[in-house]
């Protein structure tokens, strides 16, 4: 299908200006800092030569335009800067150290939210107008309005402090990881790959509370989305026409779901940004060693280049995910072509 290929090419090309703008925005925001970042980092008492040297290292002495292009071309080469604190370790390496934790959390959290959202949204949509529907709508509003750290803390309180059933922080019991090296960084997977099922199980235990917290709050938005789409599709003529041909309820429902879930899928893709926001809050609440905690730590130490590199990474990450989602959408819906 050449039209599909055209779409993929055009859509990918469109990502370039978007990414450029985001990168420029990040650059602008971080340069707006009153005073200078190096001094904020090392404090006023440091000798001026030391500050100068660090500034030189961070390239802050060059004219702004030069800095801008250095920055852009650096990213193109995969150079996200070097940490000003941890012995000039490339930011990218540090990001990859912490990324798997966030990925694992977001995968499980997303899964939980999708399951809850699809089920409740479909029920609410199919039974629109009834008490069940109203109850589910209220659930979705409450879920959406829940403050993630608060929900996480309540779970920690009940399951960790009172019932002592589940761990309240971290990814894994440290004692289990002596003499053990992860492969992908996703502990659940790595446990299986290295034949250490005890690690997989412990990782899962640690994942339960954070994923459910994240999942419940995110499901609020999904429930509303799925419900709205199901109602809209149900009202469409082809549902009645399908019924008029004698198709069974299940067959008709299949048509309805396929049509309703497609806009939901795109929306979910766009919700990736919201997923990341939620992940940051969840990580902080559960002391989860992921990107969120990493970024906050570096902000505290004013590790300027790392902060910049990390946010740039976020921007790229989100753009690529959106691109992939849009392409998937085009694959499924034959109407989307340029």
């Amino acid at each position: 299908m050449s039209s599909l290929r055209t779409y993929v090419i055009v859509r990918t090309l469109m990502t370039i200006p978007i990414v450029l703008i985001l990168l420029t925005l990040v650059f602008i925001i971080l340069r707006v800092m009153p005073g200078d970042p190096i001094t904020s980092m090392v404090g006023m008492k440091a000798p001026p030569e030391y500050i100068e040297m660090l500034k030189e290292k961070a390239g802050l002495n060059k004219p702004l335009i030069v800095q801008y292009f250095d920055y852009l071309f650096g990213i193109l080469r995969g150079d996200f800067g070097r940490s000003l604190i941890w012995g000039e370790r490339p930011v990218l390496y540090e990001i990859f150290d912490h990324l798997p934790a966030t990925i694992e959390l977001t995968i499980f959290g997303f899964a939980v939210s999708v399951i809850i959202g699809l089920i409740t949204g479909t029920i609410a949509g199919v039974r629109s107008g009834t008490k069940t529907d109203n109850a589910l709508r209220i659930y979705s509003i409450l879920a959406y309005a829940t403050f993630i750290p608060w929900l996480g803390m309540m779970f920690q309180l009940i399951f960790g402090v009172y019932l002592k059933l589940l761990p309240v922080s971290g990814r894994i019991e440290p004692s289990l990881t002596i003499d053990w090296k992860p492969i992908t960084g996703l502990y659940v997977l790595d446990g299986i790959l290295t034949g250490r099922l005890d690690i997989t199980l412990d990782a899962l235990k640690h994942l339960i509370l954070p994923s459910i917290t994240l999942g419940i709050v995110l499901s609020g938005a999904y429930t509303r989305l799925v419900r709205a789409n199901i109602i809209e599709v149900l009202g469409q003529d082809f549902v009645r026409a399908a019924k008029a041909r004698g198709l069974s309820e299940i067959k008709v429902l299949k048509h309805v779901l396929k049509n309703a879930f497609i806009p939901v899928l795109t929306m979910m893709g766009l919700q990736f940004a919201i997923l990341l926001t939620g992940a940051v809050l969840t990580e902080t609440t559960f002391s989860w060693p992921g990107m969120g905690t990493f970024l906050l730590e570096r902000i505290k130490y004013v590790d300027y280049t790392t902060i910049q590199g990390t946010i740039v990474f976020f921007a790229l990450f989100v753009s690529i995910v959106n691109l992939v989602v849009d392409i998937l959408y085009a694959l499924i819906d034959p109407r989307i072509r340029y």
Partner: protein
Amino acid sequence: MTLLKINNLKVYYYTRRGIVKAVDNVSLAINKGEMIGLVGESGSGKSTLGLSIIRVLPPQAKIISGSVIFNGTDLLKLSEREMRKIRGKEISMVFQDPLTSLDPLQKIGDQIVETILEHEPNISKQEAYNMAKKALQEVGIPPDRIGNYPHQLSGGQRQRVMIALATVLKPKLIIADEPTTALDVIVQDRIMELLSALKKEYGMSILFITHDLALAAERSDKIAVMYAGHLYEYGSSSDIVNKPLHPYTKGLIESIPDVFMRKEIKEIPGQPPDLTKPPSGCRFHPRCPYRMPKCSREEPPILQVNGRLVKCWLYS
């Protein structure tokens, strides 16, 4: 030979504004191989009547009383499962807007095959595909387009696909609810041509629901005129067009524009009534130029006049 007999059907809609008496005590008979034009304004209840036959009404509608006898069975008493066997196979329906009546995500061929396999599970998929191709050919769509999606076809072609869907299993009755309203006049004519041809070829009966009396008169054997939930006149097309008996029918005919501008266009004064509070007595009386005092007090009975049915006090 009577194929379908609707007796004293009452269908009401339950809305926030009140109970809409969309079809109030309507009786109608359709014979084998006949095309009946069911004519009426918007809100007359004609669509509701059509939907009620195969019971695909929206959830806020309820069939209150009456019977729909098809081949000796009362369709209203059947279970949903038994009803499904009838839909699409014995009685099928063609809807007004073909773009929204087809699943946009499924190829047209697959939609036809799905219908075939639903009713004849013993047929092989290959055979079903051949049947689908033949059905498309019969309605004038080249069979190589079987892999197209609905949005890849024109409006007229999509309606043909709907007709193919409705006729592939050779039903005895087709209910066509304003099948040509969303199409331009030239395409309209071709679709009507197609329906007449199918009717002749397979001896199907067609209940042709429309607001266009002229269109109905062109090809129907009989015409039924509905207004405000009641059936007011029923007879052969030529009789009704040449000598309309009911004042409403007369008004309809007089409001048809004449191409040669031989006469003035006269419209019927007033508006169709609010069906949550229909007028007392004869529902047409507020707009009727021939109304008598009796008309506002008592609902007229259905009378037989010269082989026609008329619901009007003028003929008692």
